[in-house]
C-alpha cells in the first residue's frame, strides 16, 4: 500500500521530483505555480537525495541552467507559467536542437501578455507546435488530476531520455492549485555519475582518455550536415508518434458525440457527460494525455462512428485544429471554450454540444 498524501498539484510536482531522483531544479517564481519552488526549498532535498534546487534570476537563466545540467546527463527540470514559458522558448529550441532530455512544467495562466493569473489552456499552440525557432517538438503530457501531476514527472523524464528531447507537462492553474489525494512512491536513488557516464556517451561527463571529447551543440554550419541533423530529429519524432501516443476514453463505446478535452477541461467534460446522458445524449470523452504526439489515429477511427465532436478547451480554439485535421472533415467538429481565466461550467458544455453540434448545421 502506497503512502497517501493530500496535496496541491504544484506540490505534487515538487514531491514527485524529489522522490523520482531528479538531480536538479532551476526555477523562477510566477503565479500560479510558485508552490513548486517553495515546496522544494522547504523540503530541502539536497542533504537527503543530493537534488540541487536553485532560484534563478529569470526564466531565461532557469532553462539555460537546465541545458547545462541536461548536457551532463543529469535529470534536470524547471517549471513556470505562461509568460515565463514564453521566455524559455529560446532555450527550449537550443535544448531540442542539441538533443538533450529535460522536463518543463507549464502551469498555464491566461494571456496574451501579462493576461491573468487565472487558469487557461491557451498555450496549446506554443507547446505542441514547437514554440521556439526551428523544426522541433516538445513531448507534451497533459495531466488532469493531482495524481497525474505526480505521475507524469517520472513519465516525462522517461520519455525525455527515451527520445533525448525536452518533455513538457502542460497543466493549468486548476490542476496546479487544486488539492487531491495522491499516492506517492518511495524515494528512488539518483543515477550515479558512473551510470550516467556509461549510459549517455553524448553527455559532457569529463573527457575520456584516448577518446574524442564530447561537444554538445545545436550548431552545424554545413547545410548538408545540418539537413542530416534535422532528418535525424524528425525520424525520432516519427518514432515517438508511432510508439508513445497516450489517451483515455470514457463512454465512447456507444457514443454518438465526443468531447475532446484535456487537463481540467476533461474533468469538466466528465460531469457534462453525466448531465448529457441524463438528457439522453449519448456522449463520450476522448482525453488526449499526450498533446504531442496527438492521438490522431483514434480520433480518425472515432470519426467513422460518431456524428460530431466538440473540442472543449479554455482557449479561443487551438486543439480543435488538430481534431479537425484528424477527422478529415468527415463529421462536424466545433470548439467551445472560455478564456481570460474563466472556467466553463458543465452546463455550458452540454449547451454548447446541443447548439453547436447536435442542433447545428
Amino acid at each position, binding site marked *: 500500500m502506497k503512502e497517501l498524501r493530500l496535496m496541491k498539484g504544484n506540490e505534487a510536482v515538487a514531491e514527485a521530483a524529489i522522490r523520482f531522483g531528479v538531480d536538479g531544479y532551476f526555477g523562477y517564481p510566477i503565479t500560479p505555480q510558485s508552490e513548486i519552488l517553495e515546496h522544494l526549498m522547504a523540503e530541502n532535498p539536497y542533504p537527503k537525495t543530493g537534488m540541487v534546487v*536553485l532560484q534563478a534570476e529569470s526564466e531565461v537563466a532557469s532553462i*539555460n541552467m537546465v*541545458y547545462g545540467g541536461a548536457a551532463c546527463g543529469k535529470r534536470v527540470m524547471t517549471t513556470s507559467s505562461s509568460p515565463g514559458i514564453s521566455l524559455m522558448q529560446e532555450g527550449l529550441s537550443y535544448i531540442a536542437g542539441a538533443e538533450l532530455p529535460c522536463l518543463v512544467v507549464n502551469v498555464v495562466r491566461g494571456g496574451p501578455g501579462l493576461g491573468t493569473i487565472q487558469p487557461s489552456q491557451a498555450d496549446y499552440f506554443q507547446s505542441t507546435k514547437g514554440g521556439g525557432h526551428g523544426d522541433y517538438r516538445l513531448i507534451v503530457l497533459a495531466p488532469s488530476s493531482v495524481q497525474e501531476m505526480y505521475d507524469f514527472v517520472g513519465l516525462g523524464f522517461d520519455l525525455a531520455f527515451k527520445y533525448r528531447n525536452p518533455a513538457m507537462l502542460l497543466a493549468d492553474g486548476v490542476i496546479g492549485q487544486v488539492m487531491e489525494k495522491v499516492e506517492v512512491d518511495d524515494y528512488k536513488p539518483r543515477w550515479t555519475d558512473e551510470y550516467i557516464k556509461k549510459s549517455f556517451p553524448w553527455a559532457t561527463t*569529463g573527457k575520456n582518455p584516448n577518446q574524442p571529447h564530447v561537444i554538445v551543440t545545436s*550548431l552545424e554550419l554545413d547545410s548538408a550536415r545540418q539537413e542530416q541533423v534535422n532528418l535525424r530529429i524528425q525520424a525520432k519524432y516519427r518514432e515517438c508518434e508511432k510508439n508513445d501516443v497516450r489517451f483515455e476514453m470514457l463512454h465512447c463505446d456507444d457514443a454518438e458525440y465526443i468531447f475532446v478535452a484535456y487537463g481540467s477541461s476533461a474533468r469538466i467534460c466528465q460531469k457534462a457527460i453525466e448531465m448529457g446522458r441524463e438528457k439522453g445524449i449519448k456522449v463520450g470523452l476522448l482525453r488526449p494525455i499526450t498533446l504531442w504526439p496527438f492521438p490522431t489515429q483514434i480520433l480518425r477511427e472515432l470519426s467513422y462512428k460518431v456524428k460530431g465532436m466538440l473540442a472543449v478547451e479554455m482557449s479561443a480554439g487551438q486543439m480543435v485544429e488538430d481534431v479537425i485535421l484528424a477527422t478529415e472533415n468527415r463529421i462536424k467538429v466545433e470548439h467551445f471554450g472560455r478564456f481570460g481565466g474563466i472556467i466553463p461550467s458543465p452546463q455550458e458544455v452540454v449547451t454548447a454540444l446541443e447548439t453547436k453540434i447536435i442542433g447545428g448545421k
Partner: protein
Amino acid sequence: MNESIIKPENLVYRRTPVLTDNVMHYCPGCGHGTIHRLIAEVIEEMGIQEQTIGVAPVGCSVLAYNYLDVDIQEAAHGRAPALATGIKRLKPDFFVFSYQGDGDLAAIGTAETIHACNRGENITMIFVNNGIYGMTGGQMAPTTLEGMKTSTSPYGRDIKMMGNPLKITELLAQLPGTIYVTRQAVYKPALVRKCKTAIRKAFENQRLNKGTSFVEVVSNCNSGWKLPPVEANKWLEENMLPMYPLGDIKDVK
C-alpha cells in the same frame, strides 16, 4: 631536417595536447587563438583535462569547442554563465569555465553574467573584449569606445545617442560573489605570460570554492577594426587600454 635534434632536453616549445589538431578559423592576428592556447595549457599543466567542462559562446569563438579538447557545451547567445551554473551545481567536483566575447557577456547576457557572479558561482569566466561584434561583421558592442567607427556606428559611437562603453569588469568587481577579477591582454609576449598566470589562478581558485573568478582579456579585431595585425595591436594599446586598463581589479586573499 636532422631528426637527431628532437630530444627532450632541446625542447623549447611544445603544442599542448589540450588543443585539438583542427585548424582555427580565426583571422590572422586575432587574439582568440592565443587565449585558447593559454586555457589549454593551464588545463594541461593542472592535469584536469578529464575533470573540466567548458561552455562556448555565440560570436567569433562559437567554434571554440572544436579547438579545446575538453568536454564542452555550446550555449545560446549570452547564456554561458547560466549553463556553467547548471554544470557546476550538478558536478561540483569539476572545473567549469565559460568563454565569452563582449556582445555575448556584456550586452545580451548581462543578466546571466551579473547574477552568476553575484551568486559567487565557483567557476572561471573568460571574457574577451575587443570592442566590436566580430562574427556578425563588425557592429557596435557594449564596449565599443566613444567615437569608434563600426558598421552600426559608421560615424563613430555617439555617447549621447548610443550610450557609454560598459566597463562590466569593474562592475563585477563590486559584487561580493567575485573573488578574483582581473584585466589582461595578449598582444605582447610578456602580457601573454601574465595572462596565463591570471588564467591559471582563476582555475586554481575553483579548488578554494570561494566564488567566481573573472578574467577579461582586452583583445583585437583586425577585420572589424579594419587594421593590419600590427597596427591593430598598436591601436589597442593606444585606445583600448586607457579605457580598459590592465591589472588585477580584485583579488580576495
